[in-house]
């Protein structure tokens, strides 16, 4: 019976030429803007206006990239470094603090556990980005405007992260394991470290990736609170257009440069991102 089921499903689910053609078109569309900007970015100022431009890249990408990198107004290296610092710090802190809170919500008994977790979920519906005026005033008062701390602090932990880790730990961390660690004389923090962290690893890796992507691409708040001399990549990129509105081979070369680090990361971790999105969907 089981064998019959399996073979019949394979039959129902067999892809046709149409399936592969449709997917190939989607894939082409996914990569097209990236390739096209490489074409423009490897040409010169006139390429973008040329309807008969070549579909093979020109030879100027390196020169254009160097022009962008060396432009003092863009501050490319600083922007890249800042983006790395901000995204890494924010991701690590989100993962650690979310796992801590998730461990408590999922596995520890304490007064108010239920209502407090509901409160966490409720905060997800609050568009906190709308509080940027007072947030800016607050940062200005502390003298933090222009510094990376102003971008990092509000993003140290998210409700989504806490929710995600709680859900995961509830399912994958056996309560007996915690009790065993307690009997062996581990205090709470050691239990967390030796039992919860190893169990949380797959979900923590996914949370790290999502947080990293979000932090890397974040634009509005850094644009407000950072200045041109100390930008993150999206802020620097937005300046590129203001500086070079004539030469789009430079602008698009810059757009590519800002995207490449995440694309490289994606090559190695895309599998986990896919799994993470699909796992989250089933729960949601």
């Amino acid at each position, binding site marked *: 019976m089981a064998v019959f089921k399996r073979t019949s499903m394979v039959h129902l689910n067999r892809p046709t030429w149409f399936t592969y053609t449709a997917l190939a078109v989607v894939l082409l569309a996914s990569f097209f*803007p990236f390739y096209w900007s490489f074409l423009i970015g490897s040409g010169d100022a006139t390429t973008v206006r040329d309807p008969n431009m070549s579909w093979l890249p020109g030879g100027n990408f390196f020169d254009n990239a160097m022009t962008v990198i060396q432009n003092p107004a863009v501050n490319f290296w600083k922007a890249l470094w800042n983006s790395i610092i901000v995204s890494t710090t924010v991701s690590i802190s989100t993962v650690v603090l979310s796992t801590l809170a998730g461990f408590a919500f999922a596995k520890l008994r304490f007064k108010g556990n239920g209502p407090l977790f509901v409160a966490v979920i409720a905060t997800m519906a609050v568009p906190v980005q709308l509080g940027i005026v007072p947030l800016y005033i607050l940062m200005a008062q502390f003298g933090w405007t222009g510094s990376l701390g102003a971008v990092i602090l509000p993003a140290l932990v998210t409700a989504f992260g806490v929710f995600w880790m709680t859900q995961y730990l509830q399912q994958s961390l056996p309560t007996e394991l915690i009790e065993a660690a307690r009997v062996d004389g581990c205090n709470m923090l050691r239990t967390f470290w030796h039992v919860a962290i190893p169990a949380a690893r797959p979900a923590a890796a996914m949370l790290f990736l999502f947080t990293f992507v979000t932090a890397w691409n974040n634009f509005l708040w850094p644009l407000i609170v950072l200045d041109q001399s100390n930008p993150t990549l999206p802020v620097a990129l937005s300046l590129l257009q203001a500086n070079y509105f004539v030469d789009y081979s430079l602008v698009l070369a810059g757009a590519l440069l800002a995207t490449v680090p995440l694309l490289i990361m994606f090559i190695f971790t895309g599998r986990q991102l896919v799994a993470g999105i699909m796992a989250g969907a089933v729960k949601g």
Partner: protein
Amino acid sequence: MATTELETSRADSVWRQRLSRWDVKASPYLYIAPFFIVFALFGLFPIIYTAVISLMDWDTIRNSGEYIGFGNFEYVLNDRKFWVSLRNTFSIFILSSIPQIVIATFVAAMLDHHLKARTFWRMGVLVPYVMMPVAVALIFSQLYADSYGLVNHWLGMIGIDPIQWHKDVIPSHVAIASMVNFRWIGYNTLILLAAMQAIPRELYEAAALDGAGKSRRFFSVTLPQIRPTAIFVIITSTIGGLQIFDEPRMFDSAGNGGADQQWLTITMYMYNTGWGELNFGRASAIAWLLFLIILVFGLLNFWLTRKFISSDKGGE
């Protein structure tokens, strides 16, 4: 010597027990505290304080304000820009959410096969998700250039006159919505794919035995089964979608939403009022109006979901 050792060890164990009890009681609160502190400081406090500032004429130099009642709200609600930006925001949101869910459903159905190189296809559709919205906007705004853009060039080849993407209202919304779609279709595809794979395969077999063809199975089995997930996808996109900023801001080099505010969105309007005109009072009023709109939408969503979920019992 022996007695003192015994005493210290006893005192030690009492102390340890007390410490351990305290550890069990206090630890959970310590572990969840960081989230609540960060949320209170950088989430809750600012959003409440926004309401206070919205009632003030804020002086950015002295960093203090003077109470003026509802003057800012009055000004904003009488400003043409507010209503235009409201229209644009909704228009862009609808143009991005509906095609997005339709295309994502289609692509998910394509991925829901016994494919060769399964992971390759799944990763492939997700690539746009990691692309920086600012970079996407820079690239797309050139693809949609009014006079020389590739999109108009291609349209010309099939006999369509050039479209004024950066001048006409609806075309500019279509262009901006396409950037949002580009970035999020793959992401939503995977969510819907997960929902499709959770459908019991027996349902398909039963339908096939009843003589349902491929498209019939899609419309009668797949679609009803993924409906809760599709609703979830749309709902989660509203909070972010109504705050759209990156793409319209980068759609031209000025960043003001066009000569006639064709694609000015509410968040752009707030940004320009706050950090362009340095009018924090009015910017706060705009923020609170948007907050109320999102709140109304959230409640509407909540009501709709409950209605939908109670109406299809099979859904999770």
